[in-house]
């Protein structure tokens, strides 16, 4: 039986990136990541191995992202416990990170559900699993991913020129 600590260690950065692709805001993404793992912690005793851990965690994370607007209202900043200090300094990383920032910006400008789909694709989640997480058919996911990648490639071509 996998423990919460193991899950957290393995998935925290992955889930953070998914949230970051969704909101493109470092602090908000951290909040949603933490909310996701709080849910994971609460629901872990009920987890039955019907799906893989990954699928299960990504479902929780995706739904947390989708309900983000609701939470924004319900839990005003300051009500959640204090953040620990953040050592990430975007300004310290240079050039290539300009591209990284651009990538996340582009993704966060896509329609909401597309943001989640492409983020999971970039995390190497199988398309059949993405379909299960989002409640779509596999072919639908394939088509969407193809279109999203096309859009991103176009934007990047513009960026690099």
């Amino acid at each position, binding site marked *: 039986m996998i423990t919460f600590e193991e899950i*957290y260690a393995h998935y925290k950065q992955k889930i953070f990136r998914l949230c970051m692709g969704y909101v493109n805001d470092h602090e908000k993404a951290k909040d949603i990541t933490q909310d996701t793992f709080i849910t994971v912690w609460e629901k872990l005793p009920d987890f039955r191995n019907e799906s893989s851990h990954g699928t299960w965690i990504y479902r929780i994370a995706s739904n947390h992202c989708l309900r983000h607007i609701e939470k924004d209202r319900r839990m005003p900043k300051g009500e959640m416990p204090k953040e620990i200090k953040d050592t990430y300094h975007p300004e310290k990383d240079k050039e290539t990170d300009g591209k990284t920032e651009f990538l996340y910006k582009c993704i966060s400008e896509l329609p909401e559900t597309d943001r989640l789909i492409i983020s999971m694709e970039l995390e190497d989640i199988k398309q059949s699993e993405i379909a299960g997480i989002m409640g779509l058919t596999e072919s639908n996911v394939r088509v969407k991913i193809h279109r999203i990648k096309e859009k991103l490639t176009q934007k990047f071509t513009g960026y690099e020129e």
Partner: protein
Amino acid sequence: MKNNTDIKELWNRKKAELPDSSELIEKAGKFRRKSLSRLILTNAALLLTSLFIGFIWFYYQPEMITTKIGITLTILAMISYLAVYNLMIPLLTKNHLTDSSAEYLQRLLKIKQKQLFLQNTMLNIYFIVLSAGLFLYMIEYTSRMSHIWGIASYAIVLTWFLINWFYLRPRSIRKQEKSINEMISRAESYRRQLGE
């Protein structure tokens, strides 16, 4: 961006410093206790008020039937408010976060529509029953007062009622509606995205 690997490489560069797992578990516990204490507080406040009203009945032994009906109505209003409030809690906290996003959004929509209906209907019933109870309750005591004091007492209660009904109630309904409707329209638009 030449190919897929490039995007993946860029994508994987993002990292955040996140609290360690023990800290997170502690936060989860704190948050849960906080929501629980709010629930207990609301229940306790309304139950104590009901008990206090019951005590008045017992202690002052009202003679007129209108007073008794008034007291019963007031307590009923508060108890029914509590009942709905407590019934809403599992509806809102049983969050279905482990469902697929399509199912989650569908559930969310239903819950929000139900919440909207319950809140508005309940608020109206609560106000009407509470005010009716108060008006009836006052008959016995105002009848013992001089005319002027009797009229003054009713005028005060009527003002309280009018302010509540025409100002506070619509304001509270509008506020709730706004946030719930916004959530509903978001959820609908996400569902449309998935349905494409």
